Every structure is written in structure tokens, then in C-alpha cells.
């Protein structure tokens, strides 16, 4: 029970008026950062990091982690309203969130997204509070082979569980892998597919691709369909929040499953993006109304948002206890810790109790504050859709261009974004799913790296992916997910012949 006493001490620290003020400032800044695509949590925290150097470390981390929570919340807003995911893990939220907004239910979608985020984060914080030391040790068992297995599972669950024609899914995914291969090959240190073009040294950044594919592509489609924003008749009062809340408890199963997926993926340093995709894919299969996924199903918003936030929050655990950041934003926070003279690692929980528990308490309070801030703004966000398309479309374009520029401060990226926009439009016209393409750009090089690291370690033997219980289990799950449809069909045939 020493942990609980520590936690209450942490609450006392976090509830000092100065810290509460920083919390609210942090959340607001974070939401703004999250809304601007491209700026992103990691960049935002990095830019604001120096501001905090003159603060005491506990206050500083409270403010920075609140920016982080704010950005996580904010990412959902543009995904739902404009189909532009501001962060990799918001991509899956667009699948059902955007159709909901188009059907005049942006308020419901936003409320569901924010509330699920809160639930996911809360679940993860409780887990951190109760089982921190146990879970931290688990992350150590993840070598390259285990990491690859997790990525493999994410890809397989997407191909196997998707209702799209599998070959179109695979084709789109392969295109994503090809794009992900551009740039420096991290295993040999050679440049690949850059053709001597300096701008390609960086490879194709996920954010540029996604802003173009989704944001610009969507605007092109809307223009073709008659320059009108659907969803303009959205109800814009706070009652929609309460109505949605009444509906949410019926989806407790999806929430719980997504929380577990999220926590697991956050602690195994795979991160929030695979968590959100995997959770969406599994919910699509298992939900009662799974066939309607992609057409504006509220469960399709709940599943990825819950998982992404559970993962984003639990990713802080390996960072604090092992010094391994689970996400880019966590990496910047890690830099901050070192600057304040705190050494993340096994000793942090022993030597810096006040700091660690102050941070954990601020996770509870920061998420709660964040939920209140964003929920009260739901009508405001939803009202944006009432603005005529002729006014909002140029604004979105400008926002997209700023976002694409700010990723690497390069005008080349803005051009690239436009190219991706046209590509996104063409793919949509030909009914190729965009999600597997994006998934492959985000996780492609990480999966490749883990794969080749494993093979280096095993001297070329593929047996490494079945070399222990943990990795074999994950790989087997992946294979089951990949051939799910075939298995199901075989099973029903078997039953038929038995009968």
C-alpha cells in the first residue's frame, strides 16, 4: 500500500495552484498543436521544452505531459471533421469518425472519441499505478524478433480482418512498403532509392503522405461531388455529449478489449499506431454491427481511440523505468528529463519518488482536465462544419500546407503533399483502400529494421521467429489473423459436411 500513499502525495503535489495552472495551459497548447496537422506532439513538446527549464522538474513534466495529452485529444478533431489525421494513431479514427461527421453526427463522433481517449488513458494509468514494476520487466523480453512479430501481427490483422478485397489491400500495402524504403537504410547505412536527390534523403515522411492522401484527396473528391460539405446540419449544443454518453456503456466490451490491446502494445515498445489499427481491425470482426464499419459506426471510433490512448499513456512506463521512449513524443520528454538532471531508469522510481508520483498523479488529473476542456468545446468544433465549403476548403488547404511545411521546414514537402493528394484521389476512385498504404508507410521501415536485426542475430535463420514461447505465440496469432477468412470458411464447410 506504499504505492497508494505515494500516489496521494503525488496528488498533493499536482494539485498545487501553480501546477493546476500549468496543467490547463499545457492542455490548451496541446489541443492547438494536435489540431494543426504536421506540428504534432513531438515537435510541439520539443519547441516548448526550453520554456520549462526554469521551472522545478515536477512542474515542468506536468506541463509537458499535459501538452502531450492535449495533442492526443486534439489529433482526433481534424480526423473526424476533415478526414485529416494529425498524428499517425488518428488514422484509424478517420475510418468511421469522418463518415459520422458527414452524416451530421460530428458531435457524437467527437464525444465518443474524447471519452474513449479518456477511458483508454485512465485504464493505462491505473495499470501503471498498480503493476509498474511487473510490467516494466516484460518490455525487456522484447528483442528484434519479438518486435517484428508485433508488427507482423498488426499487418496481418489488417489484411485478414479487412472486408476489402485482399489483393487490393495487399497492393496498397506494397506501395506503402516501397515508399517506406526510400531514404537511409538503417542496417547498412546506404542511401536507397534517392537517385541523388537531396530532398529524398529523409524518405517519405508519414505526415506528408497522410496530409496529402487524406486531406487534399478529400478536398478533391468533395469538389467533384459538388462543392458541398455534408454534415452542416449538425446539432450544436452540449446535450449531444450527454446523449452520446448514455449510449457509450453498451460498447463496454469493445472498450475493454481496446484498453488491453493498447496497454499491451504501449508497454512492448511498439506504440500507439499499431495499437489503434489492430484494435480497429479486431473490433470490425467481432462487433455485432461490424459490417457497417467504415460507414460511420460509433464503435469504429471508440476502438482505435481507446487503444491509441491506452498505448500512448502506457508508453511512458518503459520510458521512465527503462529509459526507452515508446513514441517520438516520449523521446523528447526523455531528453527533458535528462536536462532536469533526472536519469530515467530502474533507479528513478526509488530515488525520485516525488517526481514519479507527481507525474502519475498529473496523468489522472491532466486527462480529466483535458476531457473537460475538449468536451465543452465539442459544439464549437462541430459548428466548424456549418461554414460553407467555399470558405473552409481554402483554409484547410492552407492548414495542410503549413502542416506539411512544418514537418521538416521544407517547401519540397508541400509539393510532395500535393502529389500525394492527387494519388489519394486516384486510389479512392479506383477503390483501393488508403489505410494499408498508410500503415505500411508508418510501420514499414520499423518492421524491416526489426526483421533484419533478427536475422543478423540469428545468422540468417528464420527459426528465430519461433525460437521462444513469446515470439511464437505472437507470430501464430498473426498467421491466424491473416488466414481468418479461410479458417472461418473451412470451419463452416467442415460443419456442413459433418451434418
Amino acid at each position, binding site marked *: 500500500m506504499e504505492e497508494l500513499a505515494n500516489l496521494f502525495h503525488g496528488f498533493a503535489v499536482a494539485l498545487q495552484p501553480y501546477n493546476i495552472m500549468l496543467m490547463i495551459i499545457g492542455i490548451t497548447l496541446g489541443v492547438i498543436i494536435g489540431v494543426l496537422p504536421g506540428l504534432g506532439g513531438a515537435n510541439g513538446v*520539443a519547441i516548448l521544452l*526550453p520554456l520549462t527549464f526554469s521551472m522545478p522538474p515536477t512542474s515542468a513534466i506536468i506541463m509537458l505531459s499535459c501538452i502531450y495529452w492535449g495533442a492526443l485529444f486534439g489529433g482526433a478533431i481534424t480526423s473526424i471533421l476533415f478526414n485529416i489525421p494529425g498524428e499517425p494513431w488518428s488514422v484509424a479514427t478517420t475510418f468511421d469518425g469522418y463518415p459520422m461527421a458527414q452524416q451530421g453526427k460530428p458531435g457524437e463522433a467527437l464525444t465518443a472519441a474524447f471519452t474513449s481517449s479518456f477511458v483508454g488513458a485512465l485504464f493505462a494509468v491505473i495499470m501503471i499505478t498498480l503493476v509498474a514494476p511487473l510490467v516494466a520487466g516484460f518490455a525487456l523480453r522484447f*528483442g528484434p524478433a519479438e518486435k517484428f512479430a508485433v508488427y507482423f501481427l498488426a499487418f496481418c490483422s489488417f489484411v485478414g480482418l479487412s472486408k476489402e478485397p485482399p489483393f487490393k489491400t495487399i497492393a496498397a500495402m506494397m506501395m506503402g512498403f516501397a515508399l517506406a524504403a526510400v531514404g537511409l537504410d538503417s542496417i547498412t547505412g546506404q542511401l536507397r532509392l534517392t537517385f541523388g536527390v537531396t530532398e529524398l*534523403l529523409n524518405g517519405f515522411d508519414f505526415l506528408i503522405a497522410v496530409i496529402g492522401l487524406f486531406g487534399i484527396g478529400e478536398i478533391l473528391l468533395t469538389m467533384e461531388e459538388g462543392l458541398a460539405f455534408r454534415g452542416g446540419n449538425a446539432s450544436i449544443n452540449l446535450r449531444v455529449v450527454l446523449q452520446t454518453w448514455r449510449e457509450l456503456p453498451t460498447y463496454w466490451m469493445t472498450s475493454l478489449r481496446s484498453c488491453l490491446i493498447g496497454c499491451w502494445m504501449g508497454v512492448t515498445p511498439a506504440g500507439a499506431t499499431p495499437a489503434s489499427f489492430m484494435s480497429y481491425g479486431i473490433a470490425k470482426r467481432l462487433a455485432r454491427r461490424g459490417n457497417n464499419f467504415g460507414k460511420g459506426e460509433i464503435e469504429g471510433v471508440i476502438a482505435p481511440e481507446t487503444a491509441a490512448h491506452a498505448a500512448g499513456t502506457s508508453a511512458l512506463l518503459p520510458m521512465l523505468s527503462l*529509459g526507452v521512449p515508446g513514441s*517520438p513524443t516520449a523521446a523528447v520528454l526523455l531528453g527533458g528529463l535528462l536536462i532536469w538532471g533526472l536519469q530515467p531508469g530502474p533507479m528513478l522510481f526509488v530515488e525520485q519518488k516525488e517526481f514519479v508520483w507527481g507525474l502519475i498523479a498529473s496523468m489522472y488529473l491532466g486527462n480529466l482536465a483535458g476531457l473537460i476542456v475538449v468536451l465543452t468545446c465539442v459544439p464549437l468544433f462541430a459548428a466548424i462544419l456549418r461554414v460553407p465549403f467555399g470558405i473552409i476548403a481554402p483554409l484547410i488547404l492552407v492548414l495542410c500546407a503549413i502542416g506539411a511545411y512544418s514537418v521538416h521546414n521544407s517547401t519540397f514537402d508541400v509539393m510532395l503533399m500535393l502529389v500525394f493528394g492527387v494519388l489519394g484521389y486516384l486510389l479512392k476512385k479506383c477503390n483501393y483502400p488508403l489505410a494499408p498504404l498508410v500503415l505500411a508507410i508508418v510501420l514499414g521501415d520499423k518492421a524491416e529494421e526489426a526483421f533484419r536485426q533478427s536475422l543478423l542475430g540469428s545468422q540468417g535463420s528464420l527459426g528465430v521467429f519461433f525460437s521462444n514461447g513469446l515470439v511464437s505465440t505472437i507470430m501464430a496469432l498473426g498467421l491466424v489473423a491473416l488466414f481468418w477468412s479461410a479458417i472461418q470458411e473451412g470451419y463452416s464447410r467442415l460443419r456442413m459436411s459433418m451434418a
Partner: protein
Amino acid sequence: MKSFVLNVALAAMAMSCAGSTASFAAWEPVRPVEFIVPAGTGGGADQMARTIQGIVTKHNLMKQPLVVINKAGGAGGEGFLDVKTSSGNPHKIIITLSNLFTTPLATGIPFNWKDLTPVAMLALDEFVLWVNAEKPYTSVKDYVDAAKKAPSGSFKMGGTGSKQEDQIITVGIEKAIDAKFTYIPYKGGGEVAVQLVGNHVDSTVNNPIEAVAQWRGGKLRPLCVFDAQPMAYDEPIAEGKAWKDIPTCKSQGLAMEYLMLRGIFMSPKATKDQVEYYVELFKKVRATPEWQDFMKSGAFNTTFLTGADYAKWVEAEEKRHEGLMKEAGFLASN
């Protein structure tokens, strides 16, 4: 009358020039200064740049803001090319690590450190040979014996990046002890240390700051440091041992030395005044207690060089890298 005005103006200019040769520099930034980091956020160079930014802000050392920008593409090539093409722009400085040499040599991108204007060496980063604390080897000799006894290529060394400092040191060790390792590259130093804790690799050459937490937690054990003399810090870190107590690798029969540059360069065609301004700035940064703490936390070698001494050091180091990388077969083929 006109010529009088001109004369006064000339005299004023002459005086300001004279002033610059005295203690303070005449040139000062007139707009925000971009501080390029040719590496990702959260890494060693990034931490150092952001610490400097914090110190400059806190102590009001500059009238204009210092803005840290990460340009990590192509193993830092993106950052170097950016500064190279900003010729004559004194509002751009860059912090370098060993990729100043290794990236152009390994990838063949059109860049050489001579394209930039050297400002100052801030510090040198140490490398330490680490093993998992559960392993039986407590000395370099035990370690070398074990590595030699293992089947060729089955002994795994984890490190940051490919064909960069960690792998160069690995090849150096292989040569020195006549054994064959398998080198596995990871993205960041913290990840490498954790892979060693999880026993996914057999040893690493992490920088002190990357592995110190795991040493203090009793998970890792340092065997030796790749420097000519032991590190200077005598405060106990773990098990009553200090950085100072780690022997040099050479003294333990492993003849390999390597230190990594943490230095500052600026864009091409900078004037003497402009270089002088930044040199003075970094002298002030080095004098702050925050910087001293930072140096201590990462057990840095605090050598400070400027001007011709600095350029000479960099030149010698470039030759050494070229030699080491040629022997290892790391040079770009084109």
C-alpha cells in the same frame, strides 16, 4: 562638409573594428539563430543542443533567440547539406557528432567538413565497453577470452546506427583481439542499452549517459573506457565505483581508442567577427553551473578547442576515420 561626415563615419568604423580585436566582438546576430541538429530528437546531440538552448535562455546570453531544428535525414546528411548551402548566413550553426566524417564517407553525399566554418569543440564523448551484469566476465580479459572462444560471428555487439562510431569501434575491437562479432544496429543509444539488459546482444559500446541508469540499477557492468586515460569524475555511481575507476581498454590489453566530437560549426564564408561571437558565447555557456552538471552527468571529456587547433584536430580525425572505414570496407562504392 560632406567629406568631414565621411571621415567621422570611417573613424567610427575603425574604432569599432579596433574594439572587436579587444575583449568583445563587434558582430552580433540580428535575427534568430538556427541551431541545426543533424540527428533525431532525444539523442545525444539533440540533448546537448537543447541544454545549450536552455542555458542561453536562462542566463540571457543572447539578444536573439536560439532555435533548435532537427534535420536528421540521411544519417544527418540533410542537416550538413542545409548548412553547406547557407553560405554567408551567419545565423545558422550546427552541432556535430562523428557523422560529420562517417556520413559523407559511407553514403557519398557531396559534403566535407571543410565546406563549413569551424567554431569550437565543446566536449568529447567517451565510449565504454558494457556487458550485462549477469554475465560472468568481470574484466576485459574474461570478455576477450569469451569472445574468442565463441563460434565466429555468434558474439553479438549492439550499437547505434550503421557504419558509424559504434560499428567502427566494433571493427577496431575485432582487429585488436582477432575475433569476429556480429554487429546489430539500432536507432538510439537508450534502446541499445535496454537490448543489452534484456540479453538480446552480448555487449555494447554505449556512451556513459546512455547506459548510466542501467549501471546504477545493477543491470549492466562497465569493463573499460576507449580513452587514453580514465575519466575524470570521481563521484561514486554504482557499487561504490566511480567513472574514474573504469580502467582504459588499452591498459587491459584491448588496444582501441575512440572519442566522439561534440563540436560546433557554422555556415561557409563566416567572417572572423562572427566566429568570434559564437566562440565567446560558448565560453560563457561552458562557465555556467548547468553546463558543468551536464558534463558530469554524461562523464564527458571537457576538452575545449577553437580556431586553428580545432581545425587541426578535426583534420587529423577525418584522416583517422577514413583509414578506419577503409579498412572496415565502409566507404561508399560510388
